[in-house]
């Protein structure tokens, strides 16, 4: 039964743009999936190890800038740039982890916020590399033929399939992590870091590993963001607001669950984008409201609650 549901969900994921093909809907689905990846990324650290980061935009920005700079300066095509962007984000996460994980709880959260602001300011001022506040712009994407057909980058459909594959990878990675030793160690740390330490878990190493994995997916999503919107600037990809949005999607969807971030993204991004279509600004008011309601009435998140009713584990 469970396998059938998953197979149907994957089938739906890959046929959706053929069922409803209006450009707004495809754009909406792309945004939902991109935020699902970002939520899943945050969930790997914030959900499983319980370390609240307010600086995940750092990794998104690192991925976005890596992909952009590789393409514009060295001519590396974005589909190579995106995974490389993820790797660069994962590498950047190592020193950040070793510094910030000396702190606990809210202090860790504040330190990630400070690191993210420092990196945003560096990106804003390192003009020879990032072009500063002007930002970077891609005008055309390289020609690719896929099964004998040239891909039309003006259509949104190819982007949909790229982000669908990335989202699937992020969800599968979360599922695998939750079954492995890293997942078990992480949960032990989330429950009680001192006891975890006492039974011999290397808590710094585990948290850094989780942060790195988490940063990889944020970086990949960042690379995709750069390629899809074709324009980035430091305030767009390194802002505090982006970090906070990732937190909200993961928490509202359901922390420490595999499907939670996807559910959170479906709910918040759909409402948010629709709100934006009507009123243009201020759609994050819904995110704020959802967050307050979730913490107050449903701290386990939407999927966390639903899965209990449905009787599924993840």
């Amino acid at each position: 039964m469970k396998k059938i549901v998953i197979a149907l969900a994957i089938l739906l994921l890959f046929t959706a743009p053929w069922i409803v093909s209006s450009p707004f809907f495809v754009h909406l689905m792309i945004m939902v999936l991109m935020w699902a990846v970002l939520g899943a990324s945050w969930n790997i650290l914030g959900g499983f190890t319980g370390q609240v980061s307010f600086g995940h935009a750092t990794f998104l920005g690192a991925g976005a800038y890596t992909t952009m700079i590789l393409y514009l300066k060295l001519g590396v095509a974005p589909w190579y740039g995106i995974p490389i962007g993820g790797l660069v984000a994962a590498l950047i996460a190592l020193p950040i982890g070793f510094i910030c994980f000396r702190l606990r709880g809210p202090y860790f959260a504040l330190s990630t916020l400070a690191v993210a602001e420092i990196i945003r300011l560096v990106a804003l001022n390192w003009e020879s590399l990032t072009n500063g506040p002007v930002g970077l712009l891609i005008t055309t994407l390289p020609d690719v033929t896929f099964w004998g057909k040239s891909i039309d980058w003006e259509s949104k459909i190819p982007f949909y399939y790229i982000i669908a594959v990335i989202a699937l990878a992020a969800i599968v990675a979360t599922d695998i992590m939750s079954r492995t030793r890293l997942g078990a160690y992480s949960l032990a740390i989330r429950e009680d870091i001192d006891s975890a330490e006492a039974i011999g878990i290397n808590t710094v190493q585990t948290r850094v590993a989780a942060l790195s994995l988490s940063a990889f997916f944020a970086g990949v999503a960042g690379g995709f963001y750069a390629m899809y919107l074709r324009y980035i600037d430091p305030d767009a990809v390194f802002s505090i607001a982006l970090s906070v949005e990732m937190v909200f999607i993961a928490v509202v969807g359901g922390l420490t669950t595999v499907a939670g971030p996807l559910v959170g993204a479906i709910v918040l991004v759909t409402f948010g984008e629709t709100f934006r279509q009507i009123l243009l600004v201020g759609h994050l008011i819904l995110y704020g409201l959802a967050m307050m309601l979730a913490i107050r009435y449903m701290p386990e998140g939407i999927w966390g609650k639903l899965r209990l009713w449905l009787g599924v584990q993840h």
Partner: protein
Amino acid sequence: METFVQSIVSGILTGSLYAMIGVGLTVIFGVMRIINMAHGDMVMFGMYGAFLSIAFLKIDPFLSIVIWIPLAFFVGVFIYRFLLKNIVPAGELNTLLYTAGLSLFIANFVLLVATGDYRTIKLKYAIMPLRPFGIAVPIPLAIAFGMAILITIALYWFLVRTDTGRAIRATSQEPEAAALMGVNVDRMAVITFALGTALACAAGVLLAPSLYLYPTVGEILVAKCFVIVVLGGLGSVPGAIAGGLLLGVVESLGAVYVSVPYKDAIGFVIFLLVLLFRPSGLFGVGKS
């Protein structure tokens, strides 16, 4: 030498307002052990309050503070009673996330009502700066500095000399012992939260003529505020005052001697160093 003195002076002027915001956050942390992410939005409220006073009520922003402080106090009571009170027992991290949600809600609400336009407040008497001893002192900042000192002294007197102030400090030091001594801890929490909110709002009113106003200004202010209270030691009022002045001076010296764009980064670097090496604050008085 003149540039040096000039940057120290402007640093202290701005720093006095940073200190006021920081004191608000630190007293709330002291009593409730929560980090209020929405604190910057209370400053933003004050800034828009000052703007409303001059644009619609035709009242000088500095005088309008007598309206906004009591109003902010009641807003604080309301937020604590109806929004925060049930969340605080759920732990530090949940409260952190909850106030982050509250912050996003408030900022975007103002964005919807007031639009994202940058606004400024122009005062007729503040076109030319004062020039005592050849040092330029902008008039709005000078008035704000004077009022910040008065408000901080009043707060200090309240905390040190009055019974309620003593009860607040007792709760901050040891909530359980304070409760056993007959202090109504819950009541102290309401008063402290409202007081912190009123301070943030007052600082916003005073800052408004010297800064641009926009709905998400609280985001950057709250980040600076964390720097200040961690520098001074979380929970310590004198620490927050020193931290605020220090950040003001460091930013202004950094803008002159390091680089203008990186002046904001200097504060965050110091913040990280203090968190890592002296988590109880530079003066070793905070509670970590």
